[in-house]
């Protein structure tokens, strides 16, 4: 049995998290199968919240299913679809369902998703959601009302080390720490040198940092991310390597690239968050090849 995410941090272990994107529709067998494969290889498993603003099963019920399977789920919650009542209500729900970790995010704009005419909410953003967790953990709601029973949630957040200009991002990173974030999973990073610079800055603070890694599956996918995913920068040499690998060796090369990054940065950060988007069945192999199993 793996330690929970919080226990791994507390024990000073190199923490590993995976990620599950709930499907659109009610067929969850494949997702559960992927999650099952990760058992014993990850400390925690993130469940995304209508990722990319595409409507799917809610994060919270899926977290509960993973919990029953033996995972320590990380409930991702965004401000995009919920006002402050709904956010608090879902956070209390997480507590009673035994979900301990909550990753607080602002959320993508709805224009990116499949319901472009939806009314975006954004009543609270990431920093304010972290503050909300802090309030609920302290037994009070956001309006200052006393509650019957408090939460004991472990709040995390996200930071984008490749964002340019970086200064306003770092300012927000500091605000998230002040608002109670205990751990960070970064947006996808590929350039180890840039990541080292970020870690130098981040080490001033007593928080856990996990490098966010997205598995490259082709040169085209890398180019797509550079073009359309803000805050992600895949260096030219990695794109060339993916191109040279060709179709047959692409996944293998993607895993190599990820393992090299892990080896180079392992001593600097507190863990990795592995996003094998659509290829979750590869997470155990990645963990083994990186020498983390």
């Amino acid at each position: 049995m793996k330690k929970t995410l919080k226990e791994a941090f507390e024990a000073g272990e190199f923490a590993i998290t995976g990620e599950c994107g709930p499907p659109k529709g009610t067929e969850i067998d494949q997702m559960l199968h992927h999650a099952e494969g990760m058992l014993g290889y990850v400390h925690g498993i993130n469940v995304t919240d209508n990722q990319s603003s595409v409507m799917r099963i809610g994060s919270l019920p899926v977290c509960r299913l993973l919990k029953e399977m033996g995972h320590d789920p990380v409930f991702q919650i965004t401000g995009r679809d919920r006002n402050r009542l709904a956010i608090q209500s879902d956070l209390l729900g997480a507590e009673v369902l035994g979900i301990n970790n909550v990753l607080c995010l602002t959320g993508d704009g709805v224009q990116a998703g499949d319901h472009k005419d939806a009314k975006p909410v954004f009543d609270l953003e990431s920093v304010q959601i972290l503050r909300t967790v802090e309030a609920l953990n302290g037994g009070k709601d956001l309006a200052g009302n006393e509650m019957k029973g408090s939460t004991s949630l472990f709040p995390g957040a996200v930071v984008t080390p490749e964002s340019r200009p970086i200064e306003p991002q770092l300012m927000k990173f500091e605000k998230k720490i002040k608002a109670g974030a205990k751990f960070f999973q970064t947006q996808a990073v590929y350039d180890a040198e840039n990541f080292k610079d970020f870690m130098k800055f981040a080490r001033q603070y007593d928080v856990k940092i996990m490098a966010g890694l997205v598995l490259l599956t082709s040169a085209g996918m890398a180019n797509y991310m550079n073009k359309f995913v803000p805050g992600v920068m895949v260096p030219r040499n990695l794109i060339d390597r993916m191109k040279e690998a060709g179709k047959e060796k692409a996944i293998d090369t993607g895993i190599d690239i990820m393992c090299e990054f892990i080896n180079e940065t392992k001593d600097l950060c507190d863990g990795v968050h592995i996003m094998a988007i659509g290829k979750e069945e590869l997470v155990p192999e990645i963990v083994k090849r990186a020498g983390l199993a």
Partner: protein
Amino acid sequence: MIVQETKPIETIREMLKDVKKIFLVGCGDCATVCEAGGPDDLKRMEEALKGEGIEVTGTVIPDTSCHIPDVKSQMKKHAAEVEAADAIGVMSCGAGVQTLGTLYEEMPVFPINNALFLGNTERFGQHVEFCSACGECRIDKLGAICPITRCYKGILNGPCGGVNDGMCEIGNDTPCAWVLAYERLEKQGRLDNLKDTSPPKRWSAHLKPMRHLNPTLKKKMEEKEAKRKAKEAKKAE
């Protein structure tokens, strides 16, 4: 100013399918600046409606169509033309349309324009949204840049992860309001302004529908009420 544009003719055609004669009202203020409610625009609309088989019985352009007493007095001069029409078409924002709706309860009143946003003019014909009239201005610490309006997500504690080389993830060549605020405050040596965490916004400062009395009128009304009460008290004695 309320930035607006005239609806596409297909929409107007569908909306006015049961109308044969119409009286047109423009607006001398925002709609005129937006080329959607001035003299030339009304003339153009009159021609277009003629092409649809709709006769315009008369036109008027009040100084500001949202000013109910003023529009009322202007309309008095056009009583016969309104009488001859079976509908009123208004080339202004929805405020103007509702002025006419309030004044002519027994007639159908149609919006010819779409109101888009409360806008600033960057150059003639080019408008941008800077203010949402949210009832609680907090841009003193943000270099006079409003993230409630100029950030797609309206967030109050710094840029989201979607900012891309200083531009908003939504595209449209929109700069990130938070990067703009950061750069402006840096020039002013006031970056410390950004350190405090903003609490959630008080949306109750803008509960729809809003009402507002200007202080002079408020005082006048209070005095009138006090007088009425004094009179009543005297009567009771």
